């Protein structure tokens, strides 16, 4: 399985998908015009990783998501939820700046629909 490395742009997050470590990391804002097209390869990667090895850890440092990115993220979490119910080892850690409450609220709303390990972690404000 290949790794994926995508650099951040103004409207898309930096993404790192490490097949060996079974870790998917996303960092930054996400409001591309076509979120479905942008996230499709990531979701496909996660699907293959779960099918091949059955474990996936997702680390998120996401900030603002437009609604179509929210939908894409829900598709990813649905995938993790199904894998979890099938006995796979999956987790999400969502880190946010403690001053940025809107990010925590967004993460909380996702967490409501997930029964796998989903942690929302406040970090001290940088600087």
């Amino acid at each position, binding site marked *: 399985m290949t790794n994926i490395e995508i650099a951040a742009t103004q409207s898309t997050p930096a993404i790192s998908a490490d097949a060996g470590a079974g870790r998917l990391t996303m960092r930054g804002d996400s*409001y591309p*015009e076509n979120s479905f097209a942008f996230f499709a390869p990531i979701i496909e990667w996660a699907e293959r990783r779960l099918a091949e090895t059955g474990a996936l850890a997702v680390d998120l440092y996401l900030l603002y998501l437009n*609604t*179509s990115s929210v*939908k894409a993220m*829900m598709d990813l979490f649905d995938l993790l939820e199904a894998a979890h119910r099938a006995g796979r080892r999956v987790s999400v850690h969502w880190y946010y700046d403690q001053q*940025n409450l*809107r990010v925590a609220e967004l993460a909380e709303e996702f967490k409501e*629909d997930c029964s796998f390990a989903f942690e929302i972690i406040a970090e001290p404000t940088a600087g």
Partner: protein
Amino acid sequence: MNHDDLRLMRQSYDEKRILLCFNGPFSQGLIEEIGNALRTYLASDAATSSALADVFACYIEITQNIRSYARSRGYDDAAASATVVIGRNDEHRYEILAGNNIEAADAGPLVARIEQLKVMDKTQLKTAYKEQLRREPTPGGGAGLGLIDIARKASAPLSCSLRDIPGDSRQFFSLRVVI
């Protein structure tokens, strides 16, 4: 335009406490650049991190909706031209007003949708949002979530208006959101 026109525009911008105004067709690049400027203005205006996030989120949803609508109807730059204004109202709350041309046939359903959202409380809006999240994407490629998301972030019910455009079969739709 003459010098007095400019002075009157300036006077009006000051009186209405306008932070940012754009008139023209949006591209994704412009949406990002103006969004960047908006974040900078809001930060220097001492907006709280939550107000800044809400204004930015509404700005993105509105402008991306306008752009995707104009594309779905095949509008040229003149027809796709939109007007977006962000300012503060008398209670010092941020407000976003945005207007664009729409087909007369699309006006009824859009206004009906906003009327539905206007009477929902925050709990009902959250339920509507989660239901829409589970639906298939709209033909335009959007998630169909934008307006609900905007209504959730607003501190007052959304308001909208429709006006005829002289010599044009389209109508001018405008939306007002108070954060």
